[in-house]
């Protein structure tokens, strides 16, 4: 198309570059959180996460071995030799022996201290510490190095969040609570809405058009309006705050969209199939379960994903209908908000907690994207 206009090459490159820029811009925030969740608290607060992806220069402090067991006599002097790196070798850029000047010497140089005491440090971390009896005693000599440190990531935060950690940091319980809220709140509305959608799509009765209009109207009613009346109702009839209440609330709040999506899909199914089945003596119940439900799978899947994402990510409904003062039924979104308040500076905890709660919806999103897109299109484009 563009080639007919004769401007292909220049514009195409501009398009590729701008799309790439937009994609990077959109990914950047999530990647930042993802990278941060693999860094320790010290690492996060000492440098930006974007710096963590590349080798960085850091100042570190090491100590030579203790003279007591390591020193060797060399004439009237004593010498301690060894390597400052025990496990992880560094690439030393510069080093020093005083905290006031940590980069005084190059690797391989010798630092002359008072009264003939000297330290020599090689690039690979080997050192020679030489001095008289009094100098080579007590604790080992401190050595400051400036080194290039390779990127360093660990799963430690995830172990804290999922398996250990104090009650407040541990998300395992909230994770299961969220699951407990989500699964019934996804499945039950589908069953109820599917029957209603079938009736609205394929059964003739007075008031049908009015009902459909009502569903469309309720589609946009903000659930904020429902909070107080329903909470009063739940408290009044003895459900109180708990799983049953939140299941009922999610079921009802998801109902308009479910009916709307499923009805629109079912109306489009071929009329012949249903009429043939009727002629063959099938009841409406049989037609629904044997023919309509299997054929409507794509629409059912679309709605299931919507409802799953919505209930998993929900904060408001859970806060109002589920979480009581004991907090034992807290869900992940609520726990993260609480962490934001109490652990606002502990990014290793926050980032990991947030990522644990994001991971499941992201997986669902990438696996079922096709159905999600289809549902969006059916729900919005008229």
């Amino acid at each position, binding site marked *: 198309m*563009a080639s*007919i*206009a004769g401007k292909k090459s220049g514009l*195409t490159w501009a*398009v590729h570059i701008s*799309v790439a820029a937009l994609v990077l811009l959109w*990914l950047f*925030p*999530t990647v*930042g959180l993802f990278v941060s969740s693999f860094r320790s608290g010290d690492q996060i607060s000492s*440098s*930006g996460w974007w710096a963590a992806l590349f080798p960085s220069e850091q100042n570190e402090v090491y100590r030579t071995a203790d003279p007591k067991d390591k020193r060797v006599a060399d004439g009237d002097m004593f010498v301690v030799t060894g390597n400052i790196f025990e496990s992880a070798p560094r690439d030393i850029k510069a080093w020093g022996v005083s905290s006031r000047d940590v980069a005084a010497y190059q690797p391989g140089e010798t630092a002359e201290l008072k009264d003939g005491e000297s330290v020599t440090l090689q690039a690979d971390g080997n050192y020679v510490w030489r001095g008289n009896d009094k100098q080579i005693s007590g604790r080992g000599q401190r050595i400051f190095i400036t080194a290039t440190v390779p990127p360093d990531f660990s799963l430690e935060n995830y172990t804290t969040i999922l398996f250990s950690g104090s009650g407040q940091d541990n998300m395992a319980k909230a994770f*299961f609570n969220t699951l407990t*809220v989500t*699964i019934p709140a996804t499945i*039950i509305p589908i069953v*109820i809405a599917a*029957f*209603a959608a079938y009736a*609205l799509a394929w*059964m003739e009765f007075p008031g049908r*058009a009015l009902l459909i*209009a*009502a569903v469309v109207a309720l589609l*946009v*009613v*903000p*659930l*904020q*309006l*429902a*909070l*107080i*009346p*329903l909470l009063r109702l739940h408290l009044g009839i003895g459900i109180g705050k708990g*799983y*049953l209440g939140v*299941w009922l609330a999610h079921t*009802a709040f998801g*109902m*308009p969209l479910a009916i709307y999506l499923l009805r629109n899909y079912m109306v489009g199914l071929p009329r012949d199939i249903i009429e043939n089945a009727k002629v063959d003596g099938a*009841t*409406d119940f049989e037609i*629904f379960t044997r023919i309509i439900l299997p054929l409507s799978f794509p629409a059912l899947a679309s709605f299931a994903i919507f409802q799953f994402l919505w209930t*998993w*990510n929900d*904060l*408001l409904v859970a*806060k109002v209908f589920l979480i009581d003062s004991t907090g034992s*039924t807290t869900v992940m*979104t609520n726990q993260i*908000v609480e962490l934001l308040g109490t652990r606002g500076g502990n990014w290793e905890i926050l980032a990991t907690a947030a990522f644990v709660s994001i991971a499941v*919806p992201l997986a669902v*999103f*990438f696996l079922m*994207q096709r159905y999600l*897109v289809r549902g969006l299109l059916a729900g*919005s*484009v*008229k």
Partner: protein
Amino acid sequence: MLTDNPALLGLVTIVIGVGACLGYFFFSNVVLDKVIFPATGPNAGRNINRANLVRPWLFLFPAVFALTLYLAYPVFETLRLSLTDRSLDGAFVGFENYRKMMAESKFWEAVRNNMLWLIVVPAASTAFGLLVAQLTDRIRWGNLAKSLIFMPMAISFVGASVIFKLIYDTRPADQNQIGILNAVWLKFDGGIGSVLMLQVLPTLMYLAFAAIVAYVAWLFVKDIVGKGQDRSVWLLPLRLLVGVAGVWLVWLSVSSAIGVWSAELPHGEPQTWLTLSFWNNFFLMVVLIWIQTGFAMVILSAALRGIPEETIEAAIIDGANPFQIFFKIKVPQIMGTIVVVWTTITLTVLKVFDIVFAMTNGQWETQVLANYMYDKLFRANDWGVGSASAIIIMLLVTPILVWNVYNARKEMR
């Protein structure tokens, strides 16, 4: 105990819930066909007809029950609560709660911020969505790009708030900044780069926004003065409203564009972005725009694909350039879809609660109506004023509700 294990409880609920639903539908049908109106005996024919009259309501009953009790009834109950006072045992107090609410500066702050959100977020999300949809339309890795931009849809508002709090993080000036926004901000020093990025670019963006608003407003208004086809009376107030809002927005953005050049920017000082009053609203809006762009993109991309090729080919033959094709051929043809996307995002904006709750909780002048309402209901325990603010949200939604129902009915005919 069963209730001690939520997972087991959940599993049992699924089995009972789904089982009860299916059981209800199955047995109610059986009872209807076999017991109440048996399809045998002398009245078989009449009974079948009668059963078929009742059956739709059997199918509909649970759904209608849920909708009525959980969505329709609360609208009226909230309305009633907003006219009563809880501390006076629910006595009727007329518009007292509304008066109390209107006297609060926090309420007007919430209204002002909500208006800002309502203008900026749908506009920005739709514009970005349209841009991405058009750009990715014909490139080979377009689907991958779209799916990555769509991804934030799956992320909760709370998760997104954490993500963006990290971006806006502030450290003292002598430490390494760990929030990318401050890290970038400190790179600006007032030199030529700063002028380009912080003055020229915003000016261009303001002017572009003003141009788009002016164009849209003109589309609405021109039918009043010109000889448009659709001159129905009830559209007139809408057109006038859009026209006035358009003029106001154009004036606002042009004056902001001028303001950019006179502002003194605190170069070299790390900023606490979420406490900068007025501007912090925009830092919160970015979160929602980031999430909603994918939604707009998916729908607009499908609409763009649905445009008949012939119209575009004809334009090319007539010598239109790519920009003319986009703005004069494609955009007018998908205007209906753009409006649908816009209204859908508007609805989301009206209900936005989690982002403000998690990031600032309405401090530093970032209050919005939904969070104001939550504050009143569950912190101040003032159900009257809380319900009154919920009714305000409902009123703002009502035009979209009416419009949706109108469209749905038109389509069914």
